[in-house]
């Protein structure tokens, strides 16, 4: 994190100098007073004040999450680039590089563990919650498209046969994609049964 230490005659002056040097405004920094000395001058009116402050630029959730993810990847021995996208209430981190299969894992379980831990770490230091979504080499995007296709074709079968269909166990995020895909379907309705991690979506004919 970027920070500067400045000594000046007053706290206000020191902070002002620091903001100028960092080229940011007051709302985006943290100010710590490191040292404060005041000497009474001769006859009590020649005061010599010295204040040392440290001013640190605050990172937003996207920057924090990006930095943490990059650090984790380095420690895992993964060479990759991290792209950061911001959406309202959401940060998306796209990881791109070669040989990223081990970062995804079976059924995306390594990727899910990574996303879970990054979210926990970010939530610990931020009051306002923001969801961090991590994708590796477009895995989630492809998975989302596959799930949508699966939902539509299952709905088609349910409609034709008039019988409900039980899908394979899925994670909450994956089930959500199925529900959302079919929420406006006039022929079928969806609900879930069972307990995680074996909770399944059921598609059944309406009425």
């Amino acid at each position: 994190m970027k920070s500067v230490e400045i000594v000046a005659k007053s706290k206000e002056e020191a902070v002002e100098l620091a903001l100028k040097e960092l080229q940011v405004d007051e709302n985006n920094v943290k100010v710590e007073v490191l040292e404060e000395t005041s000497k009474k001058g001769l006859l009590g009116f020649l005061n010599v004040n010295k204040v040392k402050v440290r001013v640190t630029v605050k990172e937003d959730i996207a920057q924090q999450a990006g930095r943490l993810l990059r650090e984790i990847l380095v420690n895992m021995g993964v060479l990759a680039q991290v792209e950061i996208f911001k959406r309202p209430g959401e940060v998306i981190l796209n990881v791109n590089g070669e040989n990223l299969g081990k970062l995804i894992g079976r059924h995306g379980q390594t990727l899910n563990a990574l996303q879970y831990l990054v979210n926990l770490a970010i939530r610990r230091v931020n009051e306002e919650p923001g969801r961090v979504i991590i994708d590796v080499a477009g895995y989630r995007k492809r998975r989302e498209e596959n799930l949508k296709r699966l939902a539509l074709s299952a709905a088609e079968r349910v409609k034709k046969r008039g019988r409900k269909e039980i899908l394979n166990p899925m994670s909450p995020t994956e089930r959500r994609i199925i529900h959302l895909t079919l929420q406006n379907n006039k022929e079928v309705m969806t609900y879930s049964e069972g307990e995680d991690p074996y909770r399944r979506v059921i598609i059944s004919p309406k009425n």
Partner: protein
Amino acid sequence: MKELVELLTKSLVAHPDDVYVRKEESADSILLEITVHKDDLGQIIGKRGRVIKAIRTLVWACAPADKKVLVELAE
């Protein structure tokens, strides 16, 4: 791997300065034992062990193929 466990643990606890990871390596296995401040034990275990499981999953993803890697929490 030791550094990875340290980084993950430190980023999840209220007392990062009290995090310590001990590594014990033998011919066919590596043990990584995490010590945290006692108030942070729950944080690192998580509901039904979800957090420690996620840490293990990440460690195993980059573990050498010829060694068994154990990640344990010191009581």
